[in-house]
Every structure is written in structure tokens, then in C-alpha cells.
């Protein structure tokens, strides 16, 4: 039996556990190995199936996408794995529908009866908004818990312990503070929430940790930039609305204010750029202060130019697609007029246009966004992550906790956590 000559590492990037004695530990590089073409065929298949099953397939579609992105990211030479199942997402969805469906309906009807302007109505609306806000945070924590428990590396699962309701309490408190300060305290809120999550997360039985005092000073300026633009946009729109109300004719006012539109678009793009800048800096800061097991540190060096370029490209392409959908929808409405006792029925063309608009928004837009933005950004950022002291990972043991079995129903209903 011949001894096949096998290369020591067998793969690029260094292998954990294979250092020469006495040498400083090399940081292990995380690499992205996913091919765009594979993603394209996957997205195509997902879109077709989702369409054919009127949207039911989306849970399996999401699962397959995650499998692709997780498996395309490798630490050292060992890829991550996503072990979740579409069925789990689907069951989560059913459970939430059973609860949210009747309650939303009841809320709708009660509000209609009581009247939106009345004091009871105002109270009801406030209560409902607060409830939704809390539920969104519940959804966020449960997403993290589910996905971490379905992520594994070398067969060892991650996990998230801690209590959902403690998290919601913290999140709610910070939301109030952020609201009161008109959004200025947002970076601190994000750090507090990331801190709770990471300090309760683990890889196998090895706990993860985050330094809750991570220096946040460098984030303030980017955040203020990001905050300024919504204010500018709001001001512009308010001005346009006020002018048209005074002039009494929206169409004429729109035309006379047409010179404002380039400014609106510019402000919008700058806002997206500033928000992207903030998010990137936040990501780098948080990741670099997160540790696994006290010894393993992570650092990441993504390039702002690449990230922003992708963000803006995605925004422009999405706007074009949405514009096409809006044009289709307008066509549909122009072609039909319904009036009480003797309506003109919808023409076949109008129905087709409506269906086309819906399709574009629900299927084409996410597909294109995934192929451009998610692929590009994941590839760039994942490729820039490095971890040190990964030999320590050899000692990590599997945890016996399995994690949640139904998943993400709330997140699906509220459209949280797009990936």
C-alpha cells in the first residue's frame, strides 16, 4: 500500500494547530470561496420556485441562500456550515400567523369602530406601536439565537443563551433614550445590544465575550453625518408640501419646484453613503472587541470604498427596478375606474400590469439585490476577517444544547433580518 504524499496543510491560508514550535501564532485568514455563478443558478431556482408556490417556498429559499453563504466562508481552511432547515422557518411562520393574524384583525376593526382621532383610538394606536416595537426586538434576539445554533464550524455548534425578555427590556429602554435624543444615542444603544448578545453567545461550550466599554468615540461623527441627511430630506419634503398646500394645486407646485429634485436625490444618496460608512465602522469596532474564549481575537479591515460602492450601486439598481414597478402599477390604475352602482371592470391589461408590478417588487428586486449587494459585500468583508490564536479552538467542546426548533416567524412577519 503506497503512502500517498500528502501536503501538510492541504489548503491555503494555514491550518489551525500546525505551527512550528517557538514561532509567533499566525493569524488565520477567513476566506470567501463562493462562486458568483453558483449563486446565480441558486437565486434563479429560488425565484422560480417561490413564484410557483405563491411564496411558500421562500423559507426553503432563504435556507439555501444561507447554506451557500455560510459554506462559502472558511476560517483557516475549514468552512462554516449552516444546518438550519426550511421546515423550521415555515413552522415558525405558521405559529406566528396563528397569533398575529387574529390580533391584527381585531386591532384593525376595533380602531375602525372607535375612530382613529378619538382618545381611545390614540391610546390604542400608541399601545399597538409599543407592542410592535417590543416584538421586533424579540424577533431580533430569536433570529440570533436560531442562526447561531444552526451555525457550526468543524462540526461544533455556536449558541446564544441569555433571556429574550431581558434583551427586550434593555432594547426598549435604549429605544426610548434614542427617541428622546432624536437619534443621537443610537451608537451607544447598538453597542449595548451587541454587548448583551455577544456576552451570552458561545462557540460550543466556550463562551464569547465583548468589551462593553469598546471605544465608541470614532463612531460619533459618522453617525451624526448619517443623521443629518434624513433631517435635510424631511425639511425638503416639508417645504414642497407646504408650497403645494399654499398654492392649492399639487401639480403646478410640483413643476415649479422641479429644480429641487436633483438636490433630493443627492441628499438621498449622501444619506445612504453616510449610513454605510457608519455601519462599516461600527462593524469593525464591534468585531475587533469580540473574543472567543478569552484568547481568540478577531480583526477585520474592509475597505470603505468597496462597501460604499456596492451600497450605492444597490440603491441605484433598486430604485430603477422600483421605478419600473411603479410605472406598471400606474398603468394598471389608469386603465380602470371603479364607481359604485355601475363600475367599469378591470381590463385584462390592468390585471397583468398589477401582477407584473407585484412580481417585480417581491421577486425580481430581492434577487438582484442578493446577486449584487449581498454577494459583493459578503465576499469583501468575509475576506478581510482574520482571527488570532485559533489553535485554542482545538480545545472547544460541543455543547449539548440544541437550540430552538421553530424559527423566525416573528422576523418573517415583520420583515426583520433580511438575510
Amino acid at each position: 500500500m503506497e503512502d500517498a504524499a500528502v501536503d501538510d496543510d492541504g489548503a491555503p491560508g494555514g491550518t489551525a494547530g500546525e505551527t512550528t514550535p517557538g514561532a509567533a501564532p499566525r493569524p488565520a485568514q477567513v476566506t470567501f470561496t463562493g462562486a458568483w455563478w453558483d449563486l446565480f443558478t441558486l437565486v434563479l431556482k429560488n425565484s422560480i420556485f417561490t413564484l410557483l408556490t405563491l411564496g411558500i417556498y421562500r423559507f426553503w429559499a432563504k435556507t439555501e441562500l444561507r447554506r451557500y453563504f455560510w459554506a462559502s466562508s472558511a476560517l483557516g481552511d475549514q468552512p462554516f456550515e449552516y444546518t438550519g432547515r426550511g421546515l423550521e422557518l415555515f413552522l415558525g411562520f405558521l405559529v406566528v400567523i396563528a397569533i398575529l393574524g387574529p390580533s391584527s384583525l381585531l386591532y384593525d376593526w376595533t380602531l375602525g369602530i372607535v375612530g382613529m382621532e378619538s382618545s381611545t383610538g390614540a391610546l390604542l394606536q400608541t399601545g399597538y406601536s409599543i407592542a410592535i416595537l417590543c416584538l421586533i426586538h424579540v424577533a431580533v434576539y430569536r433570529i440570533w439565537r436560531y442562526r447561531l445554533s444552526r451555525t457550526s464550524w468543524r462540526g461544533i455548534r455556536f449558541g446564544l443563551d441569555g433571556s429574550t425578555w431581558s434583551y427586550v427590556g434593555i432594547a426598549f429602554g435604549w429605544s426610548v433614550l434614542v427617541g428622546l435624543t432624536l437619534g443621537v444615542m443610537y451608537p451607544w444603544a447598538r453597542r449595548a445590544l451587541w454587548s448583551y448578545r455577544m456576552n451570552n453567545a458561545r462557540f460550543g461550550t466556550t463562551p464569547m465575550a465583548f468589551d462593553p466599554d469598546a471605544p465608541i468615540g470614532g463612531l460619533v461623527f459618522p453617525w451624526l453625518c448619517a443623521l443629518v441627511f434624513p433631517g435635510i430630506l424631511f425639511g425638503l419634503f416639508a417645504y414642497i408640501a407646504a408650497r403645494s398646500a399654499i398654492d392649492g394645486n399639487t401639480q403646478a407646485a410640483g413643476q415649479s419646484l422641479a429644480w429641487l429634485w436633483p438636490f433630493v436625490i443627492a441628499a438621498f444618496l449622501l444619506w445612504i453613503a453616510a449610513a454605510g460608512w457608519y455601519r462599516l465602522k461600527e462593524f469593525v469596532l464591534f468585531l475587533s472587541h469580540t473574543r472567543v474564549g478569552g484568547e481568540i481575537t478577531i480583526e477585520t479591515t474592509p475597505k470603505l470604498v468597496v462597501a460604499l460602492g456596492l451600497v450605492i450601486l444597490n440603491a441605484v439598481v433598486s430604485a430603477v427596478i422600483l421605478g419600473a414597478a411603479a410605472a406598471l402599477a400606474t398603468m394598471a390604475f389608469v386603465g380602470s375606474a371603479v364607481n359604485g352602482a355601475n363600475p367599469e371592470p378591470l381590463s385584462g391589461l390592468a390585471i397583468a400590469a398589477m401582477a407584473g408590478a407585484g412580481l417585480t417588487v417581491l421577486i425580481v428586486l430581492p434577487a438582484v439585490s442578493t446577486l449584487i449587494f449581498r454577494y459583493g459585500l459578503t465576499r469583501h468583508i468575509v475576506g478581510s476577517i482574520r482571527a488570532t490564536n485559533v489553535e485554542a479552538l482545538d480545545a472547544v467542546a460541543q455543547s449539548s444544547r440544541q437550540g430552538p426548533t421553530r424559527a423566525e416567524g416573528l422576523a418573517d412577519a415583520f420583515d426583520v433580518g433580511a438575510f
Partner: protein
Amino acid sequence: MPSTSAPSDHAPIEARYFDGRTAEQRRVRLTLTEDSLVLWEETGRQLTRWPRREVHLVKYTSRETPQLRRGRDGDERLVLARRDDLVRLKRVLPNLMRHESPWREVWRPILLFSAAAAGSLYLLVAVGIPHSADFLAKHIPDDWTRRAGAAARDQMITLLGAVEGKRSKAAIVCRPKTDGAKAIARLVSRLTRSTDDPPRALDVVPLRLKLVNAFALPGNTILLSHGLVDQAESGNEVAAVIAHEIGHLVHHHPTKVALEQAAVSTTFGLLIGDIFGGSVMAGLGGMLVKGAYSREAEREADAWAVEAMNRENMDIRPAATLFERLAREHKDIERALRYLSTHPLSETRAATIRREATGTEAAFTDDEWRSIRAMCD
């Protein structure tokens, strides 16, 4: 060297092994027996065996380092050292490229759940929502609907006015308490005096619009566009339309439709996965539901109008000519797309009315009819 009885390839395959209990990696060699893949440690000790049928390739991982897993949920992993070894293994491991069982894992759940979802959706939209909306509409106290109705009325008036370029309510709503308005009020009380549970505080609001139509709204309001009065050839045509709208109110149709619309939008929103959005689909769905089920509502309203006017000995036959006139303007479109029209074919309605009508007298005196025509001046 351990001995093997491999039916095919002889050279052992080099791999790295993760046992799923710790993250430590081990170098192993793989050999094949009749029914399993055997893992050997470097020391020559046999580590474990994986049944051949349970070995699967982990999807989407890099082709350079093929990953194998055992079974459906196993935590163990094997990483082949060489890409070519995967080709050798593909020949001898039957389920390598497949799910554990594609029918059971993937397709059957999808089909079953899609069918179940489609079935429940149909039941909900076709049966559940209309019936509960109907029940609720009949049992909600009038006070509650009046407030919802007031909001609906204002919105409707503004919308209709905007279509004709009128902005202020004063320009649209005609003066109350004119002789014409009083004549109509008298008609309303005559028509509803024998009804078991007549709509309370029924109000006919004349609108200074060119629209040829009338609407019944929740809260017992009827909007009557003066365009209908202008192009009517006799007072009985207008009386018949008013009777028809009263028929809708007696059966609580407007409230029912409002409840249905809310329910359908919510359902579609949840289904699509965005409870706040989904308006595009929801709008379309709403229009379809309204189209399919209002035909029955229209028949009920017609039946009530015929019965009420017959009882007061008013001649309802002119309504038939009204419907036929209106049908002539929309002839082909309406016939081709009847399923989406919110009304049954005008010709069918006309035929039914002529068949059932027994009354002979005018609904208004000449003076009353004159004042009605001048109502919005």
C-alpha cells in the same frame, strides 16, 4: 498496515476528521468495505465506521476541500485532502450527492404545506372572512358603525369631488333641508315603514356631481350624485336607485364590505411576509374578493328594492330602462369580464325587475320631482 477487503479502490484516502464532540482535528485514512467507509487513525487504530448509504457531501463548500457528513444531522465531518478523491468516492457512495431522502425531506413537505396553505387561504377568503364579516356586520350596534361611517363618508365625498376637480365640501354637498331633500326623506320613510329593523337615522346626502351613481356607506348614509337625477327620465328611476341602496343598508352590506377589505388586506400582508406592506397584492386581492361576492349583495339589494316598491305600489319598471341605458354604454367590456365587475349584468337585472314588478304608481308627485331636480341649484 491494517488489512482491508475493499471491493474497488485500494489506495487509502487521506482526510481530516472532526468528531463533532470537540473542535480538534485528526488525520485519518479512509478505506472502503462492503457496506461502510472505515476511518483509521495514523496509529493504525480503527476509529469509526460510516455506513456507505449515510455519507453525504456538504453543499456549497469549496471544491478544493470536499466536506463529508454522516447522516441527516450528524456532527461528524470528514474533509478530503485531495479533490480527486471525491471522484473516486462518488462511484462507490450512492447517496453522496443527494439529500437523505429528497421526497421526504424537501418535496413532500413543500407540496403538502403549499396545498394546505392554498386550501386554508381559499377557505379563509371565500368562506371564513365573508361569513364572519356578515355576522359581525349584522350584530355591531349602529352607534359603532356610525363613527366609522362618518370617516368613510368624508373620505368618499373628498375622493369623488377630487375626480371632478372640486375641493371644498361646501361645493360638493348640496344644501340640506331643501324641498327636494324633504321629498326624498318622505320616500325613505314610506319604503322602510314595514321593515323589521329599519336602518336608524338614514340620511340621503345629495352631491353636486356629474357622476351617474349612488353609494351606500356604513353608518346608514346614502350618497346620491345629482348626475343620476339629471339624466333620469322619471322620478321612479331615482326612487328605485334609492330603494336599492336602502336594500344594501338593510342587509348591512357596506359594513360587511369594510370589514372584509380589512381582513383580506391583513391576510395577504401576512402571507407575503410583510405585515405592513403587501399593499400591491392586497389591493388586487381586495378587488377580486369584492368583485366575486358583491354580485350576491347586489341581488339581495335589488330584491329588497323590488319588494319595498311593490308594497307601496310604486312602479319599479323604469329602473329596468335605466339599467339598460347604462348597460348600452358599457356593453362589450362588461359582458367579457363579468367576474370582475361588482355588479351582475345590467340586462339580467333589468329582466328580473320587469318580471317581478307589480306596482303602478309614481313615487313622487310632479311638484316633488321638480324640487328634487332643483335640489342642488
